[in-house]
């Protein structure tokens, strides 16, 4: 799976969780997206895990800094 493919599927996940299309980039953080609080974060993580059939380690769930880190982790865990 390429990074572009991850982004393509991730866009759909974000739209599903936040109810609107969000322009994602590596640098996108929770502070950039209205409504991305701790509760939405965990819903988002769960939906991403379902979409890619992976399980994020708890330390990454807590400390994930931006979308770029999420994408890297998805690629790493899907290997």
């Amino acid at each position: 799976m390429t990074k572009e493919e991850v982004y393509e599927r991730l866009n759909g996940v974000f739209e599903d969780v936040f109810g609107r299309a969000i322009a994602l980039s590596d640098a996108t953080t929770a502070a950039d997206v209205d409504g991305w609080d701790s509760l939405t974060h965990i819903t988002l993580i769960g939906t991403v895990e379902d979409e890619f059939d992976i399980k994020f380690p708890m330390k990454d769930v807590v400390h994930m800094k931006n979308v770029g880190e999420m994408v890297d982790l998805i690629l790493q865990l899907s290997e």
Partner: protein
Amino acid sequence: MAFTTLQFIGFFAALFFAYYAIPKRFQWWLLLGGSMFFYGYASPYYLLLLLTTVSLTYIGAVATGAVYRRRDEYLSLHKGEMSRDEKKDFKAAANLRAKRWLTVTIIALLLLLGVFKYAQFAIDNLIALFTALLSILPASPSTPTPIHYASSLHLLLPIGLSFYIFQSMGYCIDVYREEVLPEKNFFKHALFVSFFPQLLQGPIGNYGRLAPQLIAEHSFDYQQAKFGLQRIAWGFFKKLMIANVIADRINPCWANIGDYEGLFCWGAILFLYAIQLYADFSGYMDIACGCSQMLGIKLDENFNCPYFATSIADFWRRWHMTLSEWFKNYLFYPLLRSDWNSRLRKFFSNKYLSTVLPTSMALAIVWFTTGLWHGASWGYVVWGVYYGLFMIAGIALAPLYDRLHAISPRFFESRPYSIFQMLRTFAIVVLGYAIFKPADLCGTLAIVQQCLNGNEAQGVYTLQYTLHHSFIKVFFWMAMLMAVDIYHLYHPLGSLRETIAKLPLAVRWTGYMAVLWAIIFFGLYGSGFDQFEYFKF
């Protein structure tokens, strides 16, 4: 040793000068010795409990770390020899062993907390239950029963126990999650658990952020020392001039609930208590953070203008932030990611139900525990549940709010609506103190009764008499407190102290002297005024 005593001022001054006078490699030893002296000053019995916690956490964390170390050594030794599945199974087995160590450590720490904090509560409830059951049998009051002996168990709750046990549990979980490596040096580990500024009332430290600072070598930094001292002064101002003065006037209200009548009267008392608690708790944090800053150590912040929060969720992101963070990372997230929660999520085909119900169940557990953390009484549990209900309602009604927001976004994003949200949140918080402060449901019910049945005019008269006309100056100090919060609200990244530092020398020193003399003249200190509200937790 409380922060607002002469003993502490003398202790800290001596420690501060010694800290920068001795060779830097011994600085952390001095902090450890100072922390042990600080905690053991009141009673060596406290020290024994602290050392038990340190030892339990040390063994648990080092054993967990050893499991991972052996796993990594084995994997590196057999690199290329194991299939992907074999590697996965091996890792899972190691993870299970680490989980066992974590479980044993957490149970041991919870037992320690349970014995000293919750045993009496459990016994009282069991006695109530057995008494109710035995009441159907013929009574024989002259014969002592096990119930008579059990009811006399009154263990002294060591100050700060809940705080340092939670900090220790967080550290063990971080080691288990492989976020940090365990500290192998017992004494360095002991310093992390016992660092004196945060020992009695938090902030609950995160190992990854705090521990490296504690053992680092620090050079004297005039700017940091000055800012630290200013923050300590601000903490003294909050505690001695606001919290203590309000407490001195409204304590009789809590002791004689029946004498104060009417909704307005109790509204005023609860409002004053809200300010008192904030000034008390955040004042302590300012002194803790200020002392640490003078030693070159940055503690996590615990408050961020909480009474300007626009929702209950927002309030808990601003009030006692390190505790909220702890519950989020170590209880709420694991609950939401647990197998039973996932099964529940998948059980409902309806998207709304599959999100709201499992989340609500996790929130209910978190807020029940938050209430219980604050104290061993049903009053605190109800107070936790009170907040839990607001949080659940917030999630359940979110789609409705979103629809309304879509109809009139301009209204919901307007300043008046934002002010309404702040006032609404503050009112909910203030109302919650009617459960929190009495800490027993009878007290809360008595307040409700006094609000509903009381004579308003009589209540106002009694309250005026209790507060006394000189109390008016406290409103001026309260306004100063709120003004500083408003400054921070609009300058989230700015520092008021940096702004002050840019003022002319004469203006700055006039201000410093004014604050110092105001604290000396208007503050309430000395015997009976050195306890902080959160000591009892």
